[in-house]
């Protein structure tokens, strides 16, 4: 009794303490993410990527597409920070502009996976029975292919282009979201507050969208961050095979592929775009790990 009273008194006396007590799950998680050294590094890398993409025209020293045959295969110098490629284009500037494509790939592919996956998973988990059976069998079939192979096959059908590569990689990511959302929906569906809203007469749609899905947000966000990394890797892989971004787009995977033939004479053409991919994927993985630990410790393996 005494301690409770003391606590109440402390609450009145210290507004900072009070606001801390009232802070939401989200604010709590955010502070945990920032406190973790690794996820902070991830956050810095991603912020850097976004800044470079926004200010690409100011940061780039040359045009990303202007060719100059006399300047081909120059090694890194003060004129060309990271050297030039087989058409004399400045690699540094191409990587800088390529960051825009990388962000686009990350956002669009994961957007596709998330929208379709969350919808399928929510419907399957919420309505159950035959709806669940049909959707989950479809998901099983999609998961029967190694993911990069399914993406390659889809691009074979849709045709070679960056847009189609993004659609393909997006579709490949659907099963993961569907499975996570379905299992979360299944557990949320059984809680008392859902039963309560049903009792007061709420319709299925309302229960699903305003009560069930908001409670699945944490795992969805974690999955999205971790998927961006793989999506960027897969899309770059497709471009590397010549199935994604087509010339003269400064997409990092495609730049790498262009440099393959000159590996002996001009290794920098391959070296720097690949390093950029590694760095960005690392950033998303670090942040994703941090978010997972902060938002949903149960997901920690």
């Amino acid at each position, binding site marked *: 009794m005494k301690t409770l009273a003391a606590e109440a008194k402390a609450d009145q006396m210290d507004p900072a303490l009070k606001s801390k007590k009232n802070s939401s799950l989200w604010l709590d998680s955010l502070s945990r993410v920032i406190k973790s050294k*690794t996820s902070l590094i991830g956050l810095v890398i991603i912020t850097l990527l976004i800044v470079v993409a926004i200010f690409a025209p100011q940061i780039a020293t040359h045009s990303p597409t202007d060719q100059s045959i006399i300047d081909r295969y120059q090694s890194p110098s003060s004129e060309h920070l990271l050297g030039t490629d087989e058409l004399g284009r400045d690699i540094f500037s191409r990587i800088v502009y390529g960051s825009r494509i990388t962000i686009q790939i990350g956002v669009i592919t994961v957007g596709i996976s998330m929208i379709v996956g969350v919808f399928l998973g929510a419907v399957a988990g919420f309505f159950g029975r035959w709806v669940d059976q049909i959707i989950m*069998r*479809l998901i*099983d*079939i999609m998961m*029967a*292919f*190694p*993911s*990069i*192979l399914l993406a*390659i*096959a889809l*691009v*074979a*059908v849709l*045709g070679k282009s960056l847009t189609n590569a993004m659609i393909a990689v997006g579709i490949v990511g659907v099963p993961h979201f569907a499975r996570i959302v379905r299992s979360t929906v299944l557990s949320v569906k059984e809680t008392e507050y859902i039963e309560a809203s049903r009792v007061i007469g709420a319709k299925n749609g309302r229960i699903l969208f305003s009560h069930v899905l908001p409670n699945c947000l944490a795992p969805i966000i974690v999955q999205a961050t971790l998927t961006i*990394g793989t999506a960027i*890797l897969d899309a*770059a*892989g497709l471009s*590397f*095979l*010549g*199935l994604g971004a087509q010339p003269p787009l400064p997409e990092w*995977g495609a730049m*790498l592929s262009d440099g*393959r033939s000159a*590996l*002996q004479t001009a*290794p920098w053409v*391959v*070296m720097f*775009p*690949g*390093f950029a*991919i*590694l760095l960005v*994927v*690392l950033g998303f*993985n*670090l942040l994703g790990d941090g978010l997972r630990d902060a938002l949903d410790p149960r997901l*920690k*393996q």
Partner: protein
Amino acid sequence: MLNYIIRRLVSLIPVIIGVSIIAFSLMHLVPGDPARSILGEKATETQLEMLREELNLNDPYIVQYGNFMGKIATGDLGDSIKSKESVASEIGSRLPATIELTLFAMTIAVVIGVLAGVIAAVKQYSWFDNLSMSGALFGVSMPIFWLGLMMIWLFSVELNWLPPSGRLSNDIELTKITNLYLVDSILTLNGTAFVDAFRHLLMPGLALATIPMAIIARMTRSSMLEVMKQDYIRTANAKGLAGRLVIFQHALKNASLPVLTVIGLQFGFLLGGAVLTETIFSWPGVGRYVVDAILSRDYPVVQSTILIIAIIFVLVNLITDILYTLFDPRIKLD
């Protein structure tokens, strides 16, 4: 147990039918006329008609699908449009290359990954722990096609230590029995061929092993840390058992279940990763075959190869599940 396996096999039937429909539909989902997209813009109407006849494209879909599945069931995977070779014999000659590469990569990934994970867990927060876990973080973020090219640049171009492509040097003789070159050279006691095949395997194997190795190391570490908190480990230590015995006999044995699951899942990943690795190192395997077929729009090859790879993938996952239940008696078979 047998019941469980049979039930799982039966549950695979709808999945494999679904997979076969997708593989079959690939050619028909291409916008426009498949015959036109195979032969290109310059083909004449007679040539197109001949190809349509050859591929039975004039039949109704359901009949075409029936034919496709009927042939597959008898082991006839069709012929390549480009090379006219039988797809079954091409896959037959290329599959051992992919299997050898995948098994080699998995061996590297498991040995180094588990060892690094155990040491990192035992010496938690030591320099080794920090170093190997940072390495693992880079590993899971690695574009393996880039890593492969960088290896070729360093070890083949600059240092001239390892061959950049292929499975065996031209001047090496090897009697082929299993078509797994390392195994064949051991069986025929051919030392030179063994060394040569090993040197060819090393770079593609390491490149392909990178991501699984990183994932296995992280999984082993966290699983070991979990187990080492248990009372029976404290008891084992307290009664004076040697540290190594406690770690390997008591801890690792119990920590190995989640690790096994990850290893099984990674096998599937390797099949996909082989597509990129084989392309970079000109490794004559199934992955490169399917990419080449897609790039040249050789649809009969694409259909059958994708179906075969998906079936292998599904079976590997099934075997993982079965092994899992064997290793962990707590798991109910229902």
